[in-house]
């Protein structure tokens, strides 16, 4: 038994522990692999290196080369062979190294992973998890910071998940691996090293949003990195006398309308906060849905605080691109308070 094994095994004894999101994801993978032999992990640099973000650290050492391994450098190949593996009884969890490097796999994701279950009247389901480290805020150069969720969320047949805390990272990844259908699992890179308590016995269902903060005047709806911005904005707004509710969507699709609409109906005002370029995005969908289904409750238009409709910024300019607390506060300020 290597040092690493000991660490992992010792860790599973204490159910609650403080850890980074990267560690929580690593734990989720290890626990899922330990629980089910058909769970495999593969991709680029996930073996000896443990992934460029170390999310697969130690898995090859613990579970062997057949359970966690490096592939040739080809994303379509990774997703395409994962689909075949799933057709033949495996539950592959594959890593796309960065958001923009998942695009070569787009065809396999959209035309096969998303549609094979439907195509075969359910005779073939595709229980794969495609992990995509995504988003900016880490000073990454071009192609390393895309928020690509809209491409997946728009695609019928995909389930798209995005945690904002280590606990959700753990619980949602376990749920995603257990899920019978393909899941695109978006990991906000900026949150990898943020810490939080993780109770490995806690389960979470895919498809449920959560109210991350209670509030009565306005509802901020967001996911991933933006949840933290929304929470920070809420704290500032509170000091200015406004009670701000924050919803963490967690599953982008299927969308938890119930929780979201209930939240907005209590406050009558909503701002969507998401880092991706806004046009035809998940934020658009959330705004359109809320606008349609909460119409008679709304005291003000649904605002969106999103990335601009430009390619992601180079490192030195990313702070201008990314939604921040001020931008959220501006949006809140614009919500027809004079009528309140």
């Amino acid at each position: 038994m290597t040092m690493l094994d000991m660490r992992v095994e010792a860790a599973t004894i204490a159910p609650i522990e403080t850890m980074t999101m990267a560690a929580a994801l690593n734990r989720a993978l290890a626990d899922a692999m330990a629980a089910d032999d058909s769970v495999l992990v593969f991709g680029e640099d996930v073996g000896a290196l443990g992934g460029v973000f170390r999310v697969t650290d130690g898995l090859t050492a613990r579970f062997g080369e057949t359970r966690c391994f490096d592939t040739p450098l080809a994303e379509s190949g990774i997703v395409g062979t994962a689909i075949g593996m799933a057709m033949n009884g495996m539950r592959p969890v594959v890593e796309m190294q960065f958001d923009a490097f998942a695009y070569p796999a787009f065809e396999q994701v959209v035309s096969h992973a998303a549609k094979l279950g439907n195509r075969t009247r359910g005779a073939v389901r595709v229980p794969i998890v495609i992990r995509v480290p995504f988003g900016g805020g880490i000073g990454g150069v071009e192609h390393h910071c895309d928020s690509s969720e809209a491409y997946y969320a728009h695609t019928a047949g995909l389930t798209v998940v995005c945690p904002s805390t280590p606990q959700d990272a753990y619980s949602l990844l376990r749920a995603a691996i257990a899920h019978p259908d393909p899941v695109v699992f978006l990991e906000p890179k900026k949150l990898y090293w943020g810490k939080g308590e993780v109770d490995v016995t806690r389960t979470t269902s895919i498809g449920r949003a959560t109210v991350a903060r209670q509030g009565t005047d306005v509802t901020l709806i967001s996911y991933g990195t933006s949840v933290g911005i929304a929470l920070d904005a809420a704290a500032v707004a509170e000091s200015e006398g406004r009670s701000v509710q924050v919803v963490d969507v967690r599953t982008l699709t299927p969308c938890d309308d119930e929780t979201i609409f209930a939240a907005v109906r209590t406050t009558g005002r909503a701002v969507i906060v998401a880092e991706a370029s806004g046009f035809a995005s998940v934020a658009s969908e959330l705004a359109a849905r809320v606008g349609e289904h909460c119409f008679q409750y709304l005291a003000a238009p649904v605002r969106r605080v999103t990335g601009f409709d430009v390619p992601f910024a180079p490192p030195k300019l990313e702070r201008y691109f990314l939604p921040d607390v001020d931008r959220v506060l501006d949006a809140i300020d614009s919500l027809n308070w004079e009528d309140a």
Partner: protein
Amino acid sequence: MTAIAETLLPREQPVSLLDADGVVHADDAYERPDDEALLGAYRALVTGRRVNDQCYALVRQGRLAVYPSSHGQEACQVAASLVLSDQDWLFPTYRDSVAVMTRGVSPAEALVLLRGDWHSGYDPQRYRVAPQATPLATQLLHAVGVAHAAKLRGEPTVVMALCGDGATSEGDFHEALNFAAVFRVPVVFLVQNNEFAISVPLSRQTAAASLAHKAIGYGIRGQRVDGNDVAAVLSVVGDAVDRARAGEGPSLIEAHTYRMQAHTNADDDTRYRGRDEVAAWVARDPLVRVRTHLQAVGLLDEELDAEIADAAEETAAQLRAAMNTEVEPDPEDLFRYVFAERPPHLERQWQQLRDELERNEGIER
């Protein structure tokens, strides 16, 4: 010349065991399949041809939406399936309906896609036949994944992955061959080089000496075979299957054949190829060739041939019957299979559609 190149380079000429007159020629490496195998292949060929021609007719009668015929390619079609055991898998394309049926899928199930009832009509797990793939070369990766999973579990499964000459230009072809080679998984890639990708001739797909030459770039065995010689295809592909099963890794086989009809009924092949070119291939008909041989060696007399033709006719009759039975499509199916469990939003969308339909029924009936 490197040692590796020596073992991996395909023949200069495609392997051929029966000439156009059905006469056997000896080959160092490949044997003519035994009588039973050859006769079985002939049966399947006759049925395959009949299915192709029946489907073509059904399109004209409006019973099928579209049919990409493998008329002329039936030797490849039947051999691809006949060399497989039960535990093996077949990964066919849109053109490989005959291969699919040869593997035991009923015509009614196999033609669901082309009739337009649903995207695929058989249970892939039951027959170990993947859905016929439309996006070119994409299924080759699934084939590799299936084989890889089997290898990891130590199962003796071999996977037969089919594609056309055009599909070899796609990136997924490259990635599939490379993954298969690197992980040394039991897949046989069988390329039916029928000289065209819709209207585009082979010369626009490759400048290589042959498509089988691509194998060397992956470090796997490549071989060329006369795709209109069912004995040769059985032998070469069967050998590749045996090697794969024995753990010798994947192979790439190029079968030289020809698409005798237009790409599909919607295509007009007079726009891009001369009639004499097509006519020249009639003389190389795979069915006639093996029939001549079987007759010459006394394995096929008129009586048996009539019996085989009858059996094919029976299949065609079943096929017609199946295609003439209108299946009432159920709109709820649109929502049933997208996910294992129907999420609330799809339930709501189905309710909306159901309400519409009920209201219309109220109006229309």
